[in-house]
C-alpha cells in the first residue's frame, strides 16, 4: 500500500517540491540523531547531566566579562583543588590517595592532564597565589592590568586539563558550543539529546492519535447511527474543554503514579486531545467517500461493511492522515514546551521545553544561550515540519492550499 502510495500523483508532485524535500531531509537527520541516541548510544542520559564546566558559560563564539572569566577559572581551579584536598571538621587537609581523585576528575570530555599529585599540587599553589592576587581587585572589569594576569592564570589552569580520547578536541568544542547552563551542563549536548525526546513525543503521540482518531472517525462516518453519535459526543466533549486545561488536568492525574519519570503521561495527555483533529477530518472525508461510486460498487459486489471500510475508505484518507500526522507532530513538540513551563512536562532528562522554561530566568541576566540553542534546534524541526505539512497539503489536497 505504501509503495503504491508513493507512486500516486500527489507523491510525485510532492517529490518535485525542492524545499519540501530539503525539509524532509532535515527531518530525517533529526530522526537519525534520535535513533542514534535511542539505539546507538550516541548520547546517554548521563551525558546530559554531566558537568562540563562552570555555570552559564557562553557558547563558543560568545564573549564575556572579565569578572565572569575569573569566576570560571575559579571553578576549574576548585575542581583540581578538590581532587587534592578535602574538608574535614572545618579543616582543609590533603587527600590520602589523590591519584585516584585525579583520575576521577572529569568535566565532560575534559580530564586531568597529569595524575602526579606532587607536581599538580605545586602548580595549584602557583595558580592559587595568582588567583588570590587577582581577588584583591574589587572591579576586575575596570582595571587594565588585570587582563594579562588573568590570561596568565587561564593558561596555568588550562594546563591542568586535557580533552580525553581521539575525538577529544571536537567533543570539547561541541560540549561548549552552546555554552553551559546553571548546573554547568552542556547546553549543546542537552539540546541535541532533546531531539530524542521531541521525536519520541512527536512520533508516538501523532501516531497513536492518528490511529485512534482515524479509526473512530472512519467508523463514525461510515457506520453512522449510534456509533456516530457516540464519537461526536466524545469529541465534542473533549474539544469543549480548553486544551491546556485538559492537558494540565491529565498531567496531574498521572503524577505520583507508576508512570512517573516516563513519557507515558505526556503521551496519554496529548493523545486525549490530539485524536480529535484527525477524527473530525477523517469522519468528514468518510462521509464524502462512502457516497462515492466505487464504494457502492464494492457494496454491489457484496463485500461486508468492515471490509469496505478497511479496503476502500481508510486507504483513501491516507493523505489526510499524513497531513494530520505532520500537524500533530508539530503540535506535540510545541505543547511539550508549554507543559514543561507549567512543570508538567518531561520528567527525566532534558527537553527543549524544559530548557526554554528554565532559560526564562537567565534571559534577564542577559544569558541567551540556552533559550537560543534550544529554540534554534526546535525551530529547525518545527519549520521543516511546517513546510512539509504545507507541501503535503499542496500535493494531496490542492483545495486547501
Amino acid at each position: 500500500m505504501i509503495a503504491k502510495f508513493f507512486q500516486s500523483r500527489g507523491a510525485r508532485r510532492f517529490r518535485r517540491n525542492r524545499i519540501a524535500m530539503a525539509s524532509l531531509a532535515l527531518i530525517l537527520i533529526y530522526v537519525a540523531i534520535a535513533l542514534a541516541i535511542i539505539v546507538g548510544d550516541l548520547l546517554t542520559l548521563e551525558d546530559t547531566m554531566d558537568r562540563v564546566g562552570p555555570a552559564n558559560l557562553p557558547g563558543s563564539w560568545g564573549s564575556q566579562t572579565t569578572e565572569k572569566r575569573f569566576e570560571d577559572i575559579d571553578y576549574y581551579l576548585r575542581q583540581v583543588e578538590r581532587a587534592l584536598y578535602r574538608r574535614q571538621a572545618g579543616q582543609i587537609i590533603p587527600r590520602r590517595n589523590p591519584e585516584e581523585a585525579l583520575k576521577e576528575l572529569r568535566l565532560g570530555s575534559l580530564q586531568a592532564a597529569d595524575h602526579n599529585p606532587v607536581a599538580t599540587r605545586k602548580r595549584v599553589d602557583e595558580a592559587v597565589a595568582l588567583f588570590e592576587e587577582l581577588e584583591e581587585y574589587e572591579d576586575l572589569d575596570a582595571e587594565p592590568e588585570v587582563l594579562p594576569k588573568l590570561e596568565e592564570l587561564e593558561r596555568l589552569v588550562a594546563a591542568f586539563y586535557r580533552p580525553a580520547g581521539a575525538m577529544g578536541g571536537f567533543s570539547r568544542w561541541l560540549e561548549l558550543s552552546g555554552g553551559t547552563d546553571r548546573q554547568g551542563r552542556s547546553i549543546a549536548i542537552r539540546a541535541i539529546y532533546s531531539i530524542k525526546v521531541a521525536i519520541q513525543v512527536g512520533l508516538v503521540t501523532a501516531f497513536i492519535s492518528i490511529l485512534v482518531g482515524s479509526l473512530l472517525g472512519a467508523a463514525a462516518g461510515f457506520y453512522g447511527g449510534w456509533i456516530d453519535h457516540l464519537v461526536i459526543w466524545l469529541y465534542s466533549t473533549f474539544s469543549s474543554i480548553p486544551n491546556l486545561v485538559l492537558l494540565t488536568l491529565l498531567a496531574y492525574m498521572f503524577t505520583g503514579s507508576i508512570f512517573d519519570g516516563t513519557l507515558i503521561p505526556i503521551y496519554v495527555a496529548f493523545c486525549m486531545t490530539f485524536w480529535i483533529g484527525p477524527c473530525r477530518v477523517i469522519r468528514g472525508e468518510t462521509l464524502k467517500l462512502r457516497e462515492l461510486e466505487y464504494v457502492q460498487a464494492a457494496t454491489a459486489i457484496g463485500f461486508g461493511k468492515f471490509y469496505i471500510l478497511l479496503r476502500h475508505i481508510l486507504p483513501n484518507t491516507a493523505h489526510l492522515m499524513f497531513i494530520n500526522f505532520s500537524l500533530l507532530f508539530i503540535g506535540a513538540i510545541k505543547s511539550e514546551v508549554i507543559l514543561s513551563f507549567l512543570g508538567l512536562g518531561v520528567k527525566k532528562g532534558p527537553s527543549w521545553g524544559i530548557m526554554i522554561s528554565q532559560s526564562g530566568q537567565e534571559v534577564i541576566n542577559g544569558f541567551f544561550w540556552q533559550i537560543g540553542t534550544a529554540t534554534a534546534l526546535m525551530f529547525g524541526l518545527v519549520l521543516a515540519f511546517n513546510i512539509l505539512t504545507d507541501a503535503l497539503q499542496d500535493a494531496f489536497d490542492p483545495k486547501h492550499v
Partner: protein
Amino acid sequence: MWAYIFRRLVYNVPVYLGIILFVMAALRVNDPIWTYLGKHATQEQYDQFAKASGLDKPFLRQYFDFLSDVVRLDFTVESWDQPGIQVGKMIRAAIVPSLALTIPALGITSFLAICVGLISAYFRGRWMDQLLVFIAVLGMSVSFLVYIILGQYFGAFWLKQHLGMDLFAISGYPSGGLTMATWAYYCLLPILISVIVALGYDTRYYRAVMVEESNRDYITTARAKGASGPKILFVHMLKNAMIPIITRIMITLPFLITGSILLEMYFNIPGMGRRLILAINAKDFPVIQAFTAIFAALFIVTNILTDVLYAIFDPRVRLQ
C-alpha cells in the same frame, strides 16, 4: 427558529454533562484534601473536611449535587484556596482582565490576518504570497513561550533600561478601574505578543479560506462583469468567506476566557486563565468545577450563536 435554538440546546445537554463528568472524575484521581490541609494535618481533620466538603459521598451523588447547583445557578460555594470568596464572585472578578486582554488580541489578530490572508490569496503563487506564507511559517515555528520571554525582556525591560521608554508594564494589572491609559500600559504588550504568535496561524487559515473562495466560479463571473481586483477581494470574496471567518472567530471565542493562560501567568494578569491554572495547581475543587460548568455553557451558547450568524451571513443556510 426558536425551536431550532431550543433543539440545539437539548442536543448539547449530553456534551455538557460529559464535560462536567470528565472534569469531576479527573479531579478525583488524586486525593486533593491533603493539599488543602497543609503540613500539620491529621487524619481526624481530613475526615472532618471530607465530610464538610461532601467529598466523602459517592461520586455519582457528588456529580448530581453539582449539576443541581449549576442548574440553580448557585455558585455560592466558597473557594478552598481562598476561603471566604464565593467561586461566582471569583470568576466574575477575573472576566474583565481576561477580556481586556483577549478581545483586543482577537480583534487585532483577526483583522490583520484577514487582510494579510486576502492579500496573500490575491497574489497567490507570486513572490508576495510566498513571502507572506514563509513569514507565517517562520513565525509558527517558534514556541509561544519564547515569544513571551523575549517579548517581555525586549518589549518592557530593554526598552526602558536602554532607551528610557517606559511604554509597557513589565507585568501586573491596574488595581483601580481600567482606563484607556492603564489598559495600554498593562495589557498592550501581552496583546502584541499574542497577536504576533497568533498571526501566523490565522494568516494561513484565512489565506486558505480566501484561496478556496478565489477558485470559485462566481469570481470568474465577477471578473467577466468587469469587477476590479479590490472589488472582488473585499466584496465578493469577503462576504462568501464570512462563514469560515465566523466559524474561526466563534470557535475561538469561548477559549478566549482561558486561552491566554501563559500570558496571564507571565504578565501577572488576574484573568480567567491564570485563575484557573492557579486553581488547578491548588486543586481548588469548587473553582475548577465552576469554571468548567460556566465555560462549557459558554461554549454551547457560542456554538448556537455561530449557527444563527451563519444564517444571517449566508442566505443559503436555513435553520431547521
